[in-house]
């Protein structure tokens, strides 16, 4: 008899693949978190780690702490919208408000001091310009 363990990943994916609508539900969706801190701690730190310290394994998750690439709010907003290399795009899962909130949160925490915020309207413009 096959054990559940050996069926593992394949089994559930088969079920998912067998029902298109179901797959859509599982792979897409929105995050409930609204504040920058809640979004960072609820989602981003899954890779960028608590304290935004980053991590190294087969590849590397960049540290967001003390990161000069955050000087302009547009760059991190673009990366969240469209992804970059190993980082998935989150444009379809986050509202403009959520992206602005988390970008602004990271830019004034973890040893970063870039207080001029990016606005949801500016995120919306970036979203439109890179479609």
């Amino acid at each position, binding site marked *: 008899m096959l054990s559940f363990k050996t069926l593992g990943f394949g089994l559930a994916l088969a079920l998912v693949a067998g029902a298109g609508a179901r797959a859509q539900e599982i792979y897409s969706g929105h995050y409930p978190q609204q504040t920058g801190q809640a979004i960072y701690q609820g989602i981003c730190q899954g890779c960028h780690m608590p304290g935004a310290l980053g991590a190294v394994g*087969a590849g590397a998750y960049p540290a967001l702490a003390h990161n000069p690439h955050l000087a302009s709010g547009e760059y991190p907003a673009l990366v969240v919208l469209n992804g970059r*290399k190993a980082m998935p795009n989150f444009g379809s899962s986050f509202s403009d408000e959520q992206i602005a909130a988390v970008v602004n949160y990271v830019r004034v925490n973890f040893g970063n001091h870039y207080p001029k915020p990016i606005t949801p309207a500016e995120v919306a413009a970036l979203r439109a310009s890179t479609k």
Partner: protein
Amino acid sequence: MQNAIDALYYDASIKVGLQFKRRFWEQDDAIYGGISFTDQPNSMIGYPSTDYFSDGKGVLLGAYTFGPNAFLYAAMSPEERVAKTVEYGAKLHPQYKEEFENGVAVAWHRVPWTLGCAGHWTEELRAQHYDDLCAIDGRIVLAGEHASRIPAWQEGALLSSLDAIRRLHQRVMTA
């Protein structure tokens, strides 16, 4: 090949295994194998298809998620993932509270040698990058589920390795 590698990110997935003092899903609820789907963040509960009717402890797949829920889980500590999974599951099976013993959680984005679960291909990405990803580039040839048309599956990984070895062999023999 470098462009293809940079273009393909990995989907997130997590699994949580929960050990219980007894197989209450069989004994109380007549559930033998199968899956309960839920709209809670744990997405599903998988019941073992083995050792039916046995006494003693049992293990459930307490959570198995993709997409947003997988990132939410990955952002938690392993202990928190297990605790949350017990909390979500208890809404479906109140027996969880009495019978839970311990659990283990894996988030593939936190597994150092993969940093993710499976390559996320779209039709557009395939058209643009798949041939380059699979091509022999200098001294490097890639093999794995990410270099196959059956992503995330062991079958894709095996077929990819056979294909890579075949092409490598062909190249060496005609050199």
